């Protein structure tokens, strides 16, 4: 399984210049323009989502899938490697965001409370990253990278559009309710979402494993 992780990291390493340039641009925008430092976290999450699909795209382009099955690895290990990579990248994006955003906040002398604000953003981004992977991975393992991209768009844009469309009937009353319950409730809600997402991620692994067992190349 370690070999598969190294393979994906090498593949992504080939794109490191693009990624670094992107990172410098984000940090530059946030540091020198009037952006909240937590924007680094939300923008970096886009990276995470792109890297996961990039790995599936590479596997398809180089016909790795069929070859991978000829290795002394079970299909379950192949699926597990991709889930570990997804988790690792989401976590790394969180850590990188935390470090960069904290530095920017300190340098820009942002108002008190920036750390709580930043941590909240990072946890939300972490949840979104895992959710998107949890939805798109089974689709990728069953139907390939192209369809997984649609699933990713759906899970990314779907809730966003929902809350925009139902702003008056759902979003505003929901936000008012959360605000009225006090600070602690918000934290419990976030932790609850995080745990539920982690559970969903594990469940998604089992679904992917099941569909991949039947997949033919």
């Amino acid at each position, binding site marked *: 399984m*370690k*070999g*598969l992780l*190294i*393979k994906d990291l*090498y*593949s992504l390493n*080939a794109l490191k210049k693009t990624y670094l340039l992107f990172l410098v641009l984000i940090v530059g925008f946030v540091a020198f323009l009037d952006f909240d430092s937590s924007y680094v976290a939300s923008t970096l999450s886009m990276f995470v989502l792109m890297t996961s699909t990039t790995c599936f795209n*590479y596997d398809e382009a*180089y*016909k*790795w899938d*069929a*070859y*991978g*099955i*000829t*290795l*002394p*690895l*079970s299909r379950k290990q192949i699926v597990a490697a991709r889930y570990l990579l997804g988790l690792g990248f989401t976590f790394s994006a969180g850590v990188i965001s935390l470090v960069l955003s904290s530095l920017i906040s300190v340098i820009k002398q942002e108002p008190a409370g920036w750390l709580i604000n930043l941590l909240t953003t990072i946890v939300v981004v972490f949840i979104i990253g895992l959710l998107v992977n949890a939805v798109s991975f089974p689709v990728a393992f069953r139907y390939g990278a192209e369809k997984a991209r649609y699933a990713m768009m759906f899970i990314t844009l779907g809730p966003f559009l929902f809350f925009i469309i139902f702003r008056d009937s759902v979003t505003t009353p929901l936000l008012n309710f959360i605000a009225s319950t006090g600070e602690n409730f918000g934290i419990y809600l976030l932790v609850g979402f995080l745990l539920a997402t982690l559970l969903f991620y594990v469940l998604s692994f089992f679904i992917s494993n099941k569909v991949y067992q*039947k997949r*033919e*190349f």
Partner: protein
Amino acid sequence: MENAIEVKNLRKEYNNFCLKDISFAVPTGSIVGFVGENGAGKTTTIKSMLDIVHKDAGSITLLGHDSTDVAAAHADVGVVFDESSFNFLITATQVGNIFKNVYKTWDAAYYQELLHRFGLGTGKKDIIKNYSRGMKMKLSLAVALAHRPKLLILDEATSGLDPVVRDEILDLFLEFIQDEQHSILFSSHITSDIEKAADYIVFIHQGEIILNAPKDELLSMYGVVHCSKQMLQQINPALVVGMREGQFGVEALVNNRTALTATDEMLVEKASIDDIMLYTIRGNRP
């Protein structure tokens, strides 16, 4: 172990194609040439063996392991497909680092030796994208060999390569087979490669095995007869596999040329694997 691969009554059905309960074996210590036209079922058979597609019926044993124990069997199998499966943006050294962490028996020194022997650059700038097709196949072969497998399975590995590279690769096969515990299943539609390297020929056509015999036996028994149509009718029909009519007479493939006596009116020549394939697939029955 008597057979490195045993395929018994393998069936795999698709909408427009079916492997029809095929059976054959790859004896340990031998090279089996798996021949047939494009679409005959060679790749489907190999994919079924390697669990890339799931068989509908029958049994497959690789190095004594059945389908329930696939990963264990794959530890001792090296596989080369007709195309390189590695990311074009990485180097041969990075490929080695990947597989070092996949195979427990990976021999890094031997891998380097193979890369050197094949003239494959290992520098940071030598990414696979810059390799020719022949170099990519050599890299695939180096990976397939560097974990010291007992069995090589090659699906059209020499297709699209020039004769020099093909010859180099065939020499490596012959070197690999020097160890009597090693075996090769080698699928190709380039019959000259099969003729050069194989000990046995398995011929598949439209999802059925229509010939399975030692190569030398085939080449010593089969013959092509050139004669008139009237003369062909005098030959025992059981001997004639297929025939083609030309402007100056007929040509027919016979399965036992020693049973015929050449005359001035009837020329009998040795048949090549190409002849056997062509007359069996496209020849008419007399």
